[in-house]
Each structure stands twice: as structure tokens, then as C-alpha cells.
């Protein structure tokens, strides 16, 4: 019976909380005390509310800078590591939480400041997430947009600056300093909830264990349009050309089931013989079994679930993390990316993924390799790790 603190500092939406809840539920059932420190308390109430696990606000930079970011150090400098005095102020606030909540184990999902604050403390850590937030133990860290040229000196300078800032704070607070930036994670045990094929850092990790994607929360049975056409599952956030795309899909011949949670209500009128809209979370086991391909703007978990079911995907990436997934999918030949988000480009890629046998074949080969996901035990592996670090 241990006190486990789950920390989420950076990012948005439910993409960090939902997996943490999947991990927390069985821990709580096993008698552990689980609490959360969250970037967004409103999201926490939506995801965790009523589960009897308390949540506290994360000390975080709530005014992140935008811009085209090429590397994890650049992401840090535009968010958590924006200024040394602010970082020190937030590290101290994390330390206050550790003192008051007295955790036996910290589970950090995209929470670099939480990790910095835990240095020098007798507090075992697990870093969890899909590959993007779990740095490989290397220096320098890689350029994540190799397709977009950037001056290597800029990336070096960013990594140097982030390291100096972390060490400035560590020095002033008497915490062990870092020799290189990725060392922030190197005393933590990784829990990599992805497939090697979707991990943009795959080539840089040594001896990494890939536990596979976490199971989704479940949902309603998919209602596909009737008829003989192929089945397309469309998932994600709205984007400017979505109305045109939906109009085109509504004319057939394929059958599309669209789940776009923030869809403008008037677009639902496009529903017809070839296009249905889902209003709630879908049963992904059924969706992946029945569909012929998926088209998605985001959702690492959705992409992984499709590939494990042997179904190819068309990725419409809108941010760096999804671009990396798109990149991995294309490299493995299991789908295509349509980063320009133009209607005709997307339609063309859907036709290719459905029509050319290679994409589905590659996806089926991957699925066979993992026995459709049956060989993966992400939650059980995580529980075993927790038991090892924090005791039963």
C-alpha cells in the first residue's frame, strides 16, 4: 500500500490524463493511495471526477510561447524552462507538494519540472507516455523535424541553455546537477506506451522495452452506413478543409463513420447514406476490426490501435507530435500523411491506402507480429514496475 503521485505538467486536452487514469484505476483497486497533480483541473474533473482520487493544480507555465520548434530542448525553453527564476519558483512549489503529500512513487507524464524538483529526493520515479515525452538517454538530443532545415548551432544553443537553466536552479536549491539534459529522466524507470514502429526516438534508445499502447476507455458500438462500400473511420479535431472533405466523403462510394468531438453542429447535416457521425467515444476494438482504414488528425492511441488491427491509416498531422507519428507510419509503409490538409490530397491518399495492397499488407504483418496486440500487456507491466519500485 503505497502513496503514488501522478504528475502531468505540459500539453493539453485529455491525452495525458486518460492514460494516467487507465494506470491509476488498478493501482487504487490494489489498495494504493493515488493522487494527481495536473496542468488543467477542468480536464481532471472531466476525466477523473468521481473516481475518489484527489487532484491538485500543477505549478506550470500557463503562457507557453508558440513557434516552430525543432527539438525537445526548444520545447522546454518555450514552456517549462522559460526563465530561470520562474523555473525555480515552480520547482519549489513542486517540492512543497512532495513534502505535504509525501509520495512513495512519482509517475510523471510530460512533467520535466516535477522531475527536476524530485532530484536528490528519496523518491522513485517512473516516466510514462508515448515515445515523444520520454527522452532517449543521449546528448545532443535530435532534430525532430529533419525535413525542415534548421541551423544545428541553434539547436545546440537551445540544449545548452536549457541545461544551464536546470543546473542554475539545481545549484541554487542544492539539488544534484545534470551532466546533460536527458539525464533529467535517466534515474526514472521508463514506461513506454507505444510501439517501436511509432517511436520517433527508436533509433536512439538502447535496450528499450516497448509495452504497446494503453487500452482506450471503451465506448459505443460503431454505426457504419449500410451498403457494400469500404469503411473509413475519420477521427480527430476540426480543421479548415474538414467541411469540404466531409462533403466529398458524403457522396460515396466508401462508407465513412466520423467521430469529431468538437465538430460544428451544422456539419452534422451532411450525414447521409455514405456518412454517419458518432457523438460519443467509440468501442475501438469494434472500430478497428470493422474498418478498412482510418483518417485522423491526432491520437497516438488510435493510430496504434489501427496498426495493431492490421489497418492502414491516413494521418493529417497538425502539430509536431502527430507529424512524427505520420513520419513513422510512412516510413513503415503502413499509411500516408497529408500534411497540407487539402481536400483533394486527402481524398487521393485515402484512395491509395484503400486501393494499393501494400499498405494493408504491411499493417497486417505488424499486427501478426504482435498477435493483434494480444502479446502486449501494458497495464500489467506497469503494475509490476510499480510493485517493484514502491512495494505491493
Amino acid at each position, binding site marked *: 500500500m503505497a502513496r503514488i503521485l501522478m504528475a502531468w505538467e505540459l500539453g493539453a486536452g485529455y491525452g495525458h490524463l486518460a492514460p494516467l487514469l487507465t494506470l491509476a484505476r488498478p493501482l487504487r483497486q490494489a489498495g494504493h493511495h493515488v493522487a494527481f497533480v495536473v496542468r488543467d*483541473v*477542468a480536464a*481532471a*474533473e*472531466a476525466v477523473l*471526477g468521481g473516481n475518489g482520487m*484527489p*487532484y*491538485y*493544480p*500543477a*505549478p*506550470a507555465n*500557463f503562457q507557453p510561447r508558440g513557434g516552430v520548434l525543432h527539438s525537445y530542448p526548444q520545447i522546454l525553453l518555450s514552456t517549462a524552462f522559460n526563465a530561470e*527564476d*520562474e523555473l*525555480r*519558483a*515552480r520547482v*519549489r*512549489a513542486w*517540492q*512543497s*507538494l512532495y*513534502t*505535504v*503529500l509525501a509520495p512513495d512513487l512519482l509517475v510523471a507524464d510530460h512533467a520535466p519540472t516535477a522531475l527536476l524538483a524530485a532530484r536528490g529526493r528519496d523518491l522513485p520515479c517512473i516516466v510514462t507516455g508515448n515515445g515523444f515525452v520520454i527522452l532517449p538517454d543521449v546528448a545532443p538530443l535530435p532534430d525532430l523535424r529533419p525535413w525542415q532545415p534548421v541551423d544545428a548551432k541553434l539547436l545546440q544553443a537551445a540544449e545548452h541553455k536549457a541545461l544551464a537553466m536546470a543546473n542554475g536552479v539545481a545549484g541554487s536549491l542544492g539539488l544534484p546537477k545534470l551532466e546533460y539534459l536527458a539525464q533529467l529522466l535517466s534515474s526514472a524507470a521508463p514506461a513506454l506506451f507505444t510501439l517501436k514502429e511509432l517511436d520517433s526516438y527508436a533509433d536512439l534508445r538502447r535496450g528499450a522495452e516497448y509495452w504497446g499502447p494503453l487500452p482506450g476507455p471503451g465506448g459505443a458500438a460503431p454505426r457504419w452506413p449500410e451498403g457494400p462500400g469500404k469503411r473509413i473511420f475519420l477521427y480527430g479535431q476540426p480543421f479548415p478543409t474538414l467541411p469540404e472533405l466531409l462533403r466529398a466523403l458524403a457522396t460515396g462510394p466508401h462508407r465513412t463513420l466520423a467521430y469529431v468531438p468538437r465538430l460544428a453542429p451544422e456539419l452534422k447535416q451532411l450525414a447521409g447514406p455514405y456518412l454517419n457521425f458518432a457523438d460519443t467515444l467509440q468501442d475501438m476494438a469494434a472500430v478497428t476490426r470493422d474498418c478498412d482504414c482510418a483518417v485522423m488528425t491526432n491520437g497516438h492511441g488510435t493510430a496504434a490501435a489501427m496498426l495493431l488491427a492490421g489497418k492502414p491509416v491516413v494521418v493529417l498531422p497538425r502539430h509536431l507530435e502527430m507529424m512524427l507519428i505520420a513520419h513513422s507510419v510512412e516510413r513503415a509503409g503502413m499509411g500516408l500523411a497529408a500534411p497540407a490538409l487539402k481536400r483533394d490530397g486527402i481524398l487521393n491518399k485515402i484512395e491509395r491506402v484503400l486501393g494499393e495492397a501494400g499498405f494493408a499488407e504491411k499493417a497486417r504483418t505488424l499486427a501478426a507480429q504482435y498477435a493483434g496486440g494480444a502479446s502486449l500487456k501494458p497495464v500489467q507491466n506497469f503494475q509490476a514496475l510499480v510493485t517493484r519500485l514502491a512495494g505491493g
Partner: protein
Amino acid sequence: MAHVVMCWELGADLGHVARMKPLAEALLRRGHRVSFIVREALSAERLLDAVRTPWFQAPYQSDAVPSPIVPTLSLPGVMHNTGFHDPRSLLARLHAWRNLYTALAPDLLVFDHSPTAMLAARGLKVRRVVLGTGFGIPPAVYPMPGFDDSATGLAAIEDRVTANANQALRALGEAPLARLADLYAADASLFFTLRELDHYAGRDAGDYWGPTRQDGGVAPAWPALPGRRVFAYLKPFKTLPALLDTFQQSGHPTLIYLGKGADETRARHAGAANLSFSDKPVDLKRAAADADLLVCHSGHGTISSALLAGKPLLLLPLNMEQRMLAQRVEQAGAGLAAPALAPEGMHAKFQRLLAEPAFTAAARGFAERYSRLEVEHIPERFAALAERLLASEAP
């Protein structure tokens, strides 16, 4: 020994933590424990010692709300735009505050501009004190007064905000508010201002303790020239260059602190013999004592320092809270406001303030009225009050 938790939810910069810091120190001297829950950790880092007074992140609405009320006409509008717009996310913040209260187990809660923190404390068996200038503590009336006399439709906005608060309270299992102002009910309401500077004129019963001491700053150093001494405490704004021209042309020795980000503007006046720019915040009490006129954005600290030293003010308010305060100073005859920030208006009012002795006379009246005000004693007085409350049984 008791654990006192000091909460700050709304507003920005150092003012709120600066106000509570000497109170916390007085409590520490008497052997109590003090923790802070703060909107901006940086303000705590700048002012507090983390070992003696640990701080925690306050839950607050960090994103702009989807359909803000613009302009805000009264405090309920401000509350709407800072998190009372939606009962579900409000409930999330109430839970987060409550979870912090449970973890910290306070014996006394102190609130500075923290309506959500106060709402979350409803129904808890813990003593509470609310403090601030007049702005953060609305009068206990329905509807709450408008920020200026022309405001209309106040009840409708307040009703919406009250309904959202009550929906969240119901989900929390707490009794609803009869009126919004009831969420500010506390064992003590302390106004760290002067009656004349209360944003809400004509409040019936206010416990006015005077402005708290302003911390530190460097000694004021005016250019060694004859003339009237002007002290300007400003941040960059569009027509600042025109105001600096006015200062320069007047020939009066002028000391200016601009905060950050006005390097270019400063460079333009680098050669002016009668202008001196300070790189660091200036000791307000000493600057007010030495100056003949103060120019500022109508912040409460600068205004109270000026009036207690008997000096008139040119006020350039940038927001509603500052405009309300500027109006109170004008009503007292101790200054002029130029809220449009128009070059001609600022220039003309600057000239009038220096030429017409009535403004200085009114400011001196202020200083004489409050010559026996002992703001140095506020922290000890507060600690004594806190101990009285702690000794009595919580409701």
C-alpha cells in the same frame, strides 16, 4: 501552534504577496506555521523564503473564457471572465482548492482577491479572514455596485454568475448563496486602504487599517537642478514619449522609474539634464517625501504613499480598477486623472497640478488627517486578531 494558509487567486504581479508577507512574518514570529497558495509562483519566489513559508500553485482560469463580458461593469463581470462563466470548470477549481485545504489542514484561511478559494471554503469548519484594498471586497449588497455610475444591467450579469456558483456548490454538496456577495462572508474583513481610497465609495461599515508598508526600493536621486521635483512611476504605454517630452520641456527635475522594456524611449531622452531614469524600483515613501508631484498609473501603493506624504498626483489609469481609484483621488481634490492618455490632456493636467496650489493643499489635508496612522503596527495587529479568531470556536 496554528497553521495559517494565505490564498491569492486573481490579479497579477507582486502586490498581493507583498501585502500578505509582513502579516505572515508576524505570525511566524509568534510561532505559527504559514503556507501560501499563489496564482503566480514567481511572485512568491521574489518575496518569500520557501523554507519558512512554502508555496503551492493556486488553481485558476488560465485560458481566456469563451464569451467574456466586455466591458466589465461590476465585480460579477470580472468573476465571470475569470472562471465563474461555467459551473463545470468552476466545480473543478473548487475541488482543487478543497483538496489543497485537506492536504494543508489550515486552522485559519486568509484570502486576498480569491473568490473561488472563498467559495470552496464554504461549509468548512475553519476560520477565515478576507483582506485587500476596497476593490477585492465588494459591499454586501445586491446587485453589487457598478464600477461607475453609468453601468446598467448589473443584476442580470450577477444572477448568471450566482447561478453558476450555486450549481457548482450544489455539486459540492454545499448550501447555495442567497446573493453573490455572501461568498465574501468572513470572520473579519480587513481593508488595507484609507476610507477615501476605497474603490466603492460610501461603504457602510469598513474596517480600514490603512495601506500596508511598501517594501524597500533604492533611495531617490533627482537631477541636481532647481525647480519642482517630479517622481514618475510608470510602465511603457503608447503616448509615454509625449509625456516624457512634457517632463523634459518643463525643466523640472524629474525622477522616472519605468520598469522593464522602455530602453528605446529612455535612450531618446538620454541627453535631457532634468530627467533621471532609475534602473531599480525607487523607495516610494522617500520619493513621496521628497517630491512635489507624483505621476503614476493609479496603483494603490503609489497613491497612498503620495497622499500620506501630502503630495498631489497626475494619474494615468490603464484599467478599470485604476480608473475607480483615480476617480476617488479626483473627488478628494488631491490630483487629476488623464485616462485617455492623450498627449495634450496629460500636458495640460501636469501644468495645472504644478500651477494650482489647491491640489497640494488637498493632499496635505489627507496627510494631516492620517498623521497618527501607524501602518508599521499592522502586522502585529493582524497576528493578534488571527490569534483571537483561532482561540474562538469555528462556526
